[in-house]
């Protein structure tokens, strides 16, 4: 049987990264095909290429065996390829029908718009695939799961044969996710090809017919789910040799510093982001929080630092209850934070390095209300010397610094405030090797100095290299916690993918 779509030898380079390294991938009509991999494994890049959003440096794409001249999304749509992004492309104030017909050429621009014909057709499609969408309903009044089905309708209305869904269940409740998988099955049964990009093993096992696993830009396996297991998939997903390069002394952790008890937090979308999460951070240790992006890590960091209000639970620094404290109060109590978004949260690009270096600590630099800029500048100069920040000019605009140098400013600023607990989120994302090593070394030095450090990272290598203990977060809950000495990749991989990592035992060891 000829696959509906096949990609042959796809190569895509981004500056400094080989995102797709001779990737082969195909998907048949009538099957649900899962594409599995960690952050940065190259699966999104591959799908963007298939949908015509990115050009490719090498390789070809065939539709039903015939080469496709793919230059833009328009070509992809014409060939029957449709994609649903994580962020829905819907106009909230429009009805489902209006969203579906938007952008379609329909007679003259000023002729009366026929919405009833399309509405009937949409109702018919909705019935046929069990989508349960009211064509007249306004998007803003629909639950997220139904909005997603409107996106599916958009594709079906445009006669898409292949539907690509990027992390489709990330925004759904468990009930909605289950319903979606049923819809996808109906689609496949009626002859469509479906690709879901995901990292959730149980969904793959429950819904997909085949799964292709990517790692570091390459395909490392393509298996039928019926002939595989969660354990095997997890091994394929994370199963590289982790280079343990950071030298870590063994030392016993001290008493508890920062305690999180049953923390409940809402996301910006008003959904539950953390559901009764508890953690205990101890003196002189690094607690690594592993997990795929978007499982509540950012919300946790924000709740700990006062940037997000907790709807339940407590945050304790020593004996002091900080749950209701403002960001400034937490800072002075000794909780420092290195946010993931160093350009938009952690710094002000238009201000100088010196002015950024005192951000958060501005009260300490004020005398009679006036800032002691000389002291600020000499502090910044000290930071730049100590952390080798270049160019070594305190008046240089922070926005023009490279990612690594900006991160050193952030980290240096946090360290200089002499915190008791330090929360670092994705500290090495987007940095080059040299900068990564510098950041790691600094974190380990802090650990030696007896600080309590919460390391939030989606990079398993980083977690394994630095942590004393590892906790895994999945959909706002801690799936499990284990000492680094006993960490094994497969178990962590399973937990990151939403499986408890216990039931499969140690069969593979």
């Amino acid at each position, binding site marked *: 049987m000829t696959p509906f779509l096949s990609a042959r030898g796809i190569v895509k380079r981004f500056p400094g990264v080989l995102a797709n390294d001779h990737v082969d991938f195909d998907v048949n009509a009538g099957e649900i095909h899962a594409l599995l991999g960690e952050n940065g494994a190259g699966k999104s890049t591959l799908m963007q290429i298939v949908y015509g959003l990115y*050009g490719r440096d090498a390789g070809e794409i065939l539709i039903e065996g015939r080469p496709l001249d793919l230059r833009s999304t328009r070509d992809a749509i014409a060939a029957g390829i449709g994609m649903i992004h994580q962020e829905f492309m819907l106009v909230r104030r429009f009805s489902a029908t209006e969203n579906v017909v938007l952008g379609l050429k329909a007679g003259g621009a000023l002729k009366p718009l026929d919405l009833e014909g399309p509405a009937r057709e949409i109702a018919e499609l909705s019935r046929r695939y069990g989508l349960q969408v009211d064509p007249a309903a306004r998007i803003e009044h629909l639950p997220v799961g139904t909005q997603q089905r409107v996106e599916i309708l958009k594709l079906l209305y445009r006669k898409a044969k292949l539907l690509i869904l990027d992390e489709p269940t990330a925004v759904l409740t468990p009930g909605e996710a289950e319903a979606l998988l049923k819809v996808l099955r109906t689609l496949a049964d009626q002859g469509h090809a479906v690709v879901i990009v995901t990292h959730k093993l149980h969904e793959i096992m429950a819904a997909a017919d085949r799964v292709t696993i990517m790692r570091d830009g390459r395909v490392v396996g393509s298996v039928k789910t019926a002939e595989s297991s969660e354990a095997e998939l997890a091994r394929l997903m994370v199963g590289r040799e982790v280079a343990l390069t950071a030298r870590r002394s063994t030392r016993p952790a001290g008493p508890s510093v920062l305690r999180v008890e049953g923390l409940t937090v809402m996301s910006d979308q008003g959904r539950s982001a953390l559901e009764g999460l508890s953690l205990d951070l101890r003196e002189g240790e690094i607690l690594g929080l592993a997990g795929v992006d978007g499982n509540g890590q950012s919300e946790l960091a924000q709740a700990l*630092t006062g*940037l997000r209000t907790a709807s339940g639970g407590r945050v304790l620094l020593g004996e002091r209850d900080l749950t209701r404290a*403002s*960001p*400034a109060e937490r*800072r002075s109590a000794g909780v420092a*934070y290195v*946010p993931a978004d160093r350009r*938009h*949260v*952690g*710094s*002000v*690009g*238009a*201000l100088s390095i010196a*002015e950024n270096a005192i*951000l*958060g600590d*501005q*009260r300490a*630099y*004020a005398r009679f*209300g*006036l*800032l002691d*800029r000389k002291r600020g500048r000499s502090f910044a100069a000290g930071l730049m010397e100590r952390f080798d920040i270049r160019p070594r000019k305190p008046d240089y605009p922070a926005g023009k610094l490279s990612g690594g140098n900006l991160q050193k400013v952030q980290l240096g600023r946090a360290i200089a405030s002499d915190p008791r607990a330090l929360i670092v989120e994705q500290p090495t994302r987007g940095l080059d090797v040299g900068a990564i090593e510098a950041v790691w070394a600094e974190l380990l030095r802090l650990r030696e100095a007896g600080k309590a450090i919460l390391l939030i990272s989606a990079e398993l290598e980083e977690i394994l290299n630095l942590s004393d203990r590892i906790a895994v977060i999945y959909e706002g809950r801690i799936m499990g916690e284990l000492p680094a000495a006993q960490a094994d990749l497969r178990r962590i991989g399973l937990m990151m993918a939403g499986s408890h990592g216990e039931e499969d035992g140690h069969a593979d060891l």
Partner: protein
Amino acid sequence: MRIFERRAAPAEGAAAAALSTALAILAALAVGGLLFLPFGADPFSAYAALFGESFLTWRGFGFTLLKAAPLILIGLGTVVAWRTGFGFLGFEGCVMIGAAAATWVALMVREGQILAGLPFAAFLPLAILASLIAGGIWSGIVGLFKSRFGGNEVITSLMMNYVALLLVQYLVSGPLREPGGLPQSPRLPRETWLPQLFDGMRANAGILIALAAALVVWALLLRSRIGYEMVVTGLNPKAARFGGVEVGRRQFMAACLAGGLAAMAGMVEVLGLHHRLIDGMSGGVGFVGMVAALLGKLHPLGVVIASTLYAGMTVGADAMQRQAGLPSSIVFMIQSLIVLFILAGEFFRRYRLRLPGRRTASAGEGV
């Protein structure tokens, strides 16, 4: 075909900014020069007369300083508000409110009134305080709406202008009306007038008040901790929150201060120029001050320079109209064109012209 191509990075740096400002001023002056031609005037001699009158004669320069004072104060208000990310447009209204407050205090110094015989040294702080508070409350309402309820300060502040104008209209046709006269307040007692700087020069203490205010705003915004927090709020509210800044509070403060400064401009106008409250006396000064602040790159020193330049142009234009019959509106156009051209210039710093048939280095990037 795309005619403009995005530059990899905007052309930045002080030199590029200065160059684009200089080009914008030259372009606006060139356009303005053409406008003289239909009236049979030579642009060069017209400009020479225009700037010569207001900057090179003692008398004209006095007028320039007289007109510069309110513009500086309004420009400073603009700097404070906009730098904190508060898109306030209600300066015109604040000018009127400040003028009304100052008039009210000054009228109490008349004989038989409660403050009769108050020495100027005690009256002036009182008048400054009254206008600051009145203007601060007036714009603070808008600030409160924004920081508390997330209201839209752009439209609300524009509407507040009209309410302020009508309020003053009511005052001068009712409670503060000069008995039997036009809709305007009685003349203020002489002892409340701002003293002249030198004998025979129209400039008065208003310019000193404005310069002092510029110094205060400079120190506040660029040297103090609270100003630092305001600037960070305006540039990046997320980073401000991260840095422990109470964003809503800083914006509310900025709103009050901006209105207070513009209200002081109204006070300077009343005590230094009109010596009474007149219906519609602000005459668009609140908007010209804003434009000058933009030309001054929202920096207190820049505001002083740009406001003086604009005041001089206005004075020169008035003289030109009186003496040569050339319309003073040309200057209005030049003043606004300068800033419009600067804004358009931002675009040319981000893009470059792509001429057909010429390939550029970054052509391979696509998207």
